């Protein structure tokens, strides 16, 4: 497959042939499969396990124009100690911020093990010249980002300039150095599941460590059917190449119940190897508090409320 990857990316035409040669996705069938998995009933011990795992998988995110160092410090503290009253509560996987906030986040998190992810490449639109995108990336990495969440050029993808998208990802990955690269497809703009599958493969072939659904700025963001297709993609890519790629749904996942549906899907579609923060993340902000409230409910038997979790 390694040779066939280089073959497939040898020209625009070859790449097009490869991507369009991937099996089609029937939308209705995919939606039904996703809905079916959504009816799994996860209770008691399984639920407790899933909630803690979900907390460990959260990329706690703030990506707003009005972000400040103060806001980011608060978020980082929350990431380290989601439930300050319960030392058994795990930390989140990472915080996710704009590049100019990386240094602040890094400093607050110190050696906690919580990683710093930075969105880069003219997030969220990706509409900037290549040198700007690369500079954006290098800047974030230089500030200490462990992970870079880049956006693909959806315009180029939708107009069929696949090689251009591919080469951009390769270049950004190079600019990442040791930082891990997550490739945001912005599936809400790709619209069809066929495009989601093709973009997933394109990003994986270009060397992305993770494929990620969305910026959170476009609706729909992460959905279960899109996740189904992307999880099939990481599963099939490993089958074909032996390389494992992570998956991050982002945007719109607000409730524990939804998070658990994702974990069920990961478990049954990609497989349990992906049930690990190294290979699966939730890009989310409000989800964490709902997970914490559910965690308390399981511990105490009583429903919790927003005043019993921290707002940061």
């Amino acid at each position, binding site marked *: 497959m390694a040779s066939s990857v280089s073959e497939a990316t040898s020209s625009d035409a070859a790449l097009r042939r490869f991507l369009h040669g991937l099996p089609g996705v*029937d*939308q*209705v*069938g995919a939606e039904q499969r996703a809905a079916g998995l959504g009816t799994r009933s996860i209770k008691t011990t399984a639920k407790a396990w899933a909630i803690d795992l979900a907390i460990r998988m959260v990329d706690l995110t703030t990506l707003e124009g009005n972000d400040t160092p103060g806001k980011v410090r608060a978020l980082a503290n929350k990431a380290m100690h989601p439930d300050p009253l319960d030392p058994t509560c795990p930390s989140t996987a990472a915080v996710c911020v704009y590049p100019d906030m990386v240094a602040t986040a890094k400093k607050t998190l110190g050696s906690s093990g919580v990683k710093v992810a930075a969105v880069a490449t003219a997030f969220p639109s990706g509409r900037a010249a290549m040198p700007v995108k690369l500079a954006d990336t290098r800047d974030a990495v230089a500030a200490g980002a462990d992970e870079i969440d880049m956006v693909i050029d959806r315009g180029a993808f939708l107009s069929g300039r696949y090689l251009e998208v591919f080469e951009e990802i390769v270049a950004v990955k190079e600019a990442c150095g040791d930082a891990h690269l997550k490739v945001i497809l912005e599936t809400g703009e790709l*619209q069809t599941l066929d495009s989601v599958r093709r973009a997933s493969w394109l990003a994986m072939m270009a060397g992305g460590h993770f494929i990620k659904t969305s910026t959170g700025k476009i609706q729909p963001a992460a959905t279960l059917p899109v996740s189904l297709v992307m999880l099939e993609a990481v599963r099939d890519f490993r089958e074909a190449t032996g390389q494992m790629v992570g998956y991050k749904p982002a945007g719109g996942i607000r409730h524990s119940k939804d998070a658990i549906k994702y974990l069920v899907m990961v478990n049954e579609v990609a497989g349990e190897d992906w049930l690990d923060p190294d290979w699966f993340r939730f890009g989310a902000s409000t989800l964490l508090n709902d997970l914490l409230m559910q965690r308390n409910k399981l511990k105490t038997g009583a429903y919790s409320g927003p005043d019993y979790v921290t707002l940061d």
Partner: protein
Amino acid sequence: MSPSSTTQRLDVKKTYKLYIDGQFPRSESGRSYVVNDSKGKFLANASQASRKDARDAVRAARAAFGGWSGRTAYNRGQVIYRIAEVLEGRRDQFEAELRAAEGISAAMARKFVDASIDRLVFYAGWADKVAQVVGGANPVAGPYFNHSAPEPSGVVAIVAPDRPLMGLISVVAPVITTGNTCVVIASEKYPLPAITLGEVMATSDLPGGVVNVLTGSVAEIAPWLASHLDVNGIDLTGVEDAELAADLEVSAAENLKRVRRPGLEDLVAPPPLDRMTKFLETKTVWHPMGI
């Protein structure tokens, strides 16, 4: 020289054979039976078909089924209309045969031939309409295109009623219009117009094997058709013996043939739709609608 040799010419009489696969073979059994006119005077010997003739007829009907059912409905309508045209051209012959067979008046014979031709025209027009009348879109509760359309059942065996031309056309035309092929046992009493109708069909662009006409004993041949596993339906319209009809229905159950029970409707009234629908299957096709 005798006068008769110059003024009288000896008729060339027709040998009435079977009509199978577009050909006119004699019964493989070599048998025939005497057909008399209404006054008991000898008219002709008709072939007395055997079980092997029935078998050959079914084989021909099965072979013709794919092609005939695969034609466009428009084309089948054209062919049936063509039968009407050719029949119109040979109406004198049929009128004469009907008068000889049934002993009816010239006016009555003309009326029957008129009605027979008109019935063919009626069914010619049905070919490309029946699917619209009995099929359609089904509004299912989900993102699916769902559509039902009629398809012919396959090979249909028919026992024609004892109404020589009109009766035969009334049972055969609806069956083939929709794309079935058939093996019809002509009226045992009035077999001759049926074979002459075979000649009309053989010259009307109707592919060989779509209609196969057997003459002979219903009691002898029909059970072989009723039990034949490659026959999909059986029309018992012309079976007058109730016990035989029940036996045929029992035999037909072996491979779940579609059965039309005995009895002939008023042929003057508009024909019942189930002359066609009894030998139609409904096929429903689902497909998701997505982007």
